[in-house]
């Protein structure tokens, strides 16, 4: 029983239906919630565990969201700040789908370009576009390199 592990193994309560995001980089749980649009005022039942001991990661965060399954685009966002996260879709206490996150090569419409002179900051009907390179996210329009504090630039 795959669900068994989740009923017993974690420090926060089990969920019947929804999403468990595990192996989040320690301390990033609240940012993960923020970028998938969950604030204190939304309806979901959310439990958060931060700095849980992890044999693989040292410390990790875990987030459980009741009655909600994440879209591809939301998963991509998570990958940007927690590249080792795993997404478990839970239905009736069982994990019915388990997927890793993968940082997409091109990130469209998720991050705002910090360059005030960039055409993407001029009210034009276009989405921002960044290409993932080893030195960071590179704006396809102005070449600006976004290498740290990506969370504060999420749209």
């Amino acid at each position, binding site marked *: 029983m795959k669900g068994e592990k989740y009923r017993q193994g974690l420090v926060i309560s089990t969920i019947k239906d929804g999403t468990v995001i595990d192996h989040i980089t320690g301390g990033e749980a609240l940012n993960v919630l923020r970028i998938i649009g969950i604030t204190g005022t939304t309806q979901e039942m959310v439990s958060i565990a931060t700095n849980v001991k992890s044999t693989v990661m040292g410390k990790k965060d875990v987030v459980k969201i009741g009655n909600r399954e994440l879209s591809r685009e939301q998963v991509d966002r998570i990958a940007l700040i927690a590249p080792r996260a795993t997404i478990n879709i839970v239905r009736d206490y069982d994990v019915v789908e388990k997927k890793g996150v993968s940082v997409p090569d091109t990130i469209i419409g998720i991050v705002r370009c910090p*360059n005030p*002179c*960039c*055409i*993407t900051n*001029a*009210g*034009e*009907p*276009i989405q921002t576009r960044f290409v993932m*390179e080893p*030195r960071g996210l*590179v*704006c*396809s*329009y*102005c*070449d*600006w*390199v976004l290498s740290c504090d990506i969370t504060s630039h999420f749209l």
Partner: protein
Amino acid sequence: MVKHIISTRDLERDAIDTLLDKAITISKKWPDNRPLQGKILGLLFFEPSTRTRMSFESAMLRLGGTCLNLGGPEVSSVSKGETLADTIRVVNGYVDALVLRHPRIGAAQMACEFSRVPVINGGDGSGQHPSQTLIDLFTIRESMPLDDIQVGMIGDLNYGRTTHSLAYALAKYEATIHTVTPDGLGFPRSVIDNLADMNLQIIQHQTIEEIVDELDVLYVTRIQRERFPDVASYLHVASGYRIFPELFDNVTKNLIILHPLPRLDEIDPGVDSLPYAKYFRQSDNGIPVRMAMLTDVLG
């Protein structure tokens, strides 16, 4: 597929060579058969740039085509708040190709995503200026092969888009770039990173005297007064980046001096008569190079 010319970074070396070859053919023998007769080139300039606009216009007329001045913000719908994307879609119906000059970086890239006709980037903010770069390369190639050359760049490399554009192109020819700039006016971080990714070597120098004798090309740029709080501090800084005839006493015979023009006082007029001075030649080359670009996208 519609062909655009947006950035020298995206252009393959082969494509650059083909454009330069075409420009050489044109400069040797002016086409007399009006190859672009019946074609209309739209000039969409959101920033003043008489030189770039007039030379594209002249190039188009020499090819037998006509130009439609689509005006700047003061005469277009932009002052009524229209987006650039909408302007592009509308003027697409009027012309066969567009030259766009815009103050924002990435404007030409965006424009080509909305355009059904070819877009030539006539300069986007501090981004790219591919026609100027092709002119620079063309002028260098008149004096020496483009491979493996030592290029000095002096002046404002931060805001100067011509130097960014040229550096990206030179990276494809394994050049080494030597920079001499005031504090704060070196290449922007993103340009340095991109050039490093392209394996272009950049060496910084304190003074031009240190390196001038080893250069094949010296590219001089304007240091703009508006970058400084007052005239006194501008004059103080700019005076250290001015070039004089005596600087060239021991240089290699093949050295060429380029400048995108207009110049302020960064090149002493005494330099003009030296055999190294090629900046007016470079300016003349603007016509055949732009003719080559126009036939390339419209041919």
